[in-house]
């Protein structure tokens, strides 16, 4: 891909409107989606990690569902839920918010398919923290919020970072649900992945250029995950904070 056309031509391909618009749409929608995923996902993952028994299993299954769902099904589902004629579409229409085929629909699609990657890793990261540490923090005067911010978040931090990197990578590559739910309107809903598909017929060099960019980003993300997980497992082998739950004696 990098050899087919000279590198200079790849770079200059980003001068095209289609590539620049796609880059902007992707950056905006993915930034908002990541804020939603981290903002709602982190407390949700923490809450699920403190549950035990069948409620936890049901919640984890629900969280994991978008992972195994075919993207086309996710697109149909989102359309049925948020589309103009959909279940909630009417409600939003009354409020003057149009969802389908706008940036909001891209954000929803990306959030839907990418959040499980973050949630799964985050739940595991919180559950790996030795349960006596939050207990110790409580006896030392920390309330529930203090325990979360001063103990759980720093100790699960590298796991959360790795999960966020994976979710970001998945969000960048999102294609199926977006094209069904948001369409591929240049400058509005056309993300990099959708632009590759369109430029495939129009200007193959642009498609190549965007693909090359996404390869670089994916490699970077993978590297980040490796570094974070290595750091995490390296430190937990020295410090037993990942010790299993001890039963009270």
């Amino acid at each position: 891909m990098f050899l087919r056309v000279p590198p200079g031509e790849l770079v200059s391909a980003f001068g095209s409107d289609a590539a620049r618009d796609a880059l902007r749409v992707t950056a905006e929608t993915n930034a908002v989606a990541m804020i939603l995923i981290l903002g709602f996902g982190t407390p949700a993952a923490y809450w699920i990690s403190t549950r035990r028994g069948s409620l936890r299993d049901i919640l984890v299954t629900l969280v994991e569902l978008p992972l195994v769902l075919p993207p086309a099904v996710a697109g149909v589902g989102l359309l049925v839920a948020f589309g103009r004629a959909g279940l909630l579409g009417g409600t939003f229409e009354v409020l003057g918010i149009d969802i389908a085929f706008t940036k909001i629909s891209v954000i929803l699609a990306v959030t839907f398919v990418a959040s499980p990657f973050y949630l799964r890793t985050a739940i595991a990261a919180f559950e790996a923290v030795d349960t006596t540490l939050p207990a110790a923090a409580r006896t030392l005067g920390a309330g529930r919020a203090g325990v979360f911010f001063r103990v759980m978040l720093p100790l699960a931090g590298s796991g959360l970072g790795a999960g966020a990197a994976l979710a970001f990578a998945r969000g960048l590559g999102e294609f199926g649900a977006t094209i069904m739910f948001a369409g591929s309107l240049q400058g509005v809903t056309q993300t990099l992945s959708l632009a590759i598909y369109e430029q495939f017929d129009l200007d193959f060099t642009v498609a190549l250029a965007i693909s090359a960019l996404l390869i670089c980003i994916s490699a970077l993300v993978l590297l980040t995950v490796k570094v974070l997980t290595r750091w995490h497992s390296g430190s937990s082998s020295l410090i037993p904070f990942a010790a299993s739950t001890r039963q009270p004696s």
Partner: protein
Amino acid sequence: MALRVQFTHPLRSFDASAELTVERGETLALVGPSGAGKTTVLRIVAGLLRPQWGSVRLDEVVLLDTDRGIDVPPERRRVGYLFQEYALFPHLDVAGNVRFGACDGSRVDELLERFRIGDLARARVHELSGGERQRVALARALARDPALLLLDEPLSALDTHTRAGVRAELRDLLSALKLPTLLVTHDFEDAATLAARVGVISQGRILQLGSPAELVSIPTDPFVASLAGAMVLAGQAIGTENGLTQVVLDSGLTAWSADQASGPVNLAVYPWDVSLGLIRQDDSRMNHLSAPVTSLAPLGNRVRVHVGPIVAEITAASAERLDLRPGAIVTASFKATAARLFPR
């Protein structure tokens, strides 16, 4: 400041219940095997576990009363809790750990100094030895200026040769702090050194509560006796003669006891009440067993000698004088007054 606790709480295979008072400046130790419900008591006092029914009071302050729906959360209970493996925060250095719960920062330096960990202030938790970790955990617990102290197996994470030193240090610290202290351990010797009163706990119930000397001299239960160091042998009391009870042990031996009992019994004898000799002597001791020595285990200046089902603890000097070695035939003897009987 006096701590008053009473509760019942179902655990996996039994109900745990207790009623305890710990006075200001007093250390009460609960001793028992793992899984007996010791940590449950501490977790209830700290507010980390809400019992099915119970109350916790610190003088007039009610920390928990399930009947009245009062349950003060752990962060407002002013409890210093030393966790079993110390539960130090791995993402913070030593000073950060001690500062975590400090109400006022100026105490931190003072505590680091007092516990001789000032040089380690910037060190990470995983770089510390067991003894250092214990001192950091104690400093951290005291930085909050607690009104009572809970110690969960404070010495079990230490290796044997640092243990004796740390135990003496801890005893001095506890007597200097003058706080009501509740300590749990599986080691009777630790409990006897650190606490004036010891409760023996088994299956969630306190079997006997008293001074260490009382528990050793008049155990009310074979479990208490075995925890205090006695060997416990099962047998049948078959009758009395001259006021003494004759017991046929399951190993086939016959023994005499000054205690009264009938039917199935446990016979408890402390190893240090058993003497060994090369010839059977005719003296006031009623119980004799001649058998080969099966093993010898040195224990400081003493030696534990196994003779058939009997364990004797004699001085190392005596063992040398008798030239004891495995296989040598000796006679183990103990008085009928040293043999306690507990109905089974």
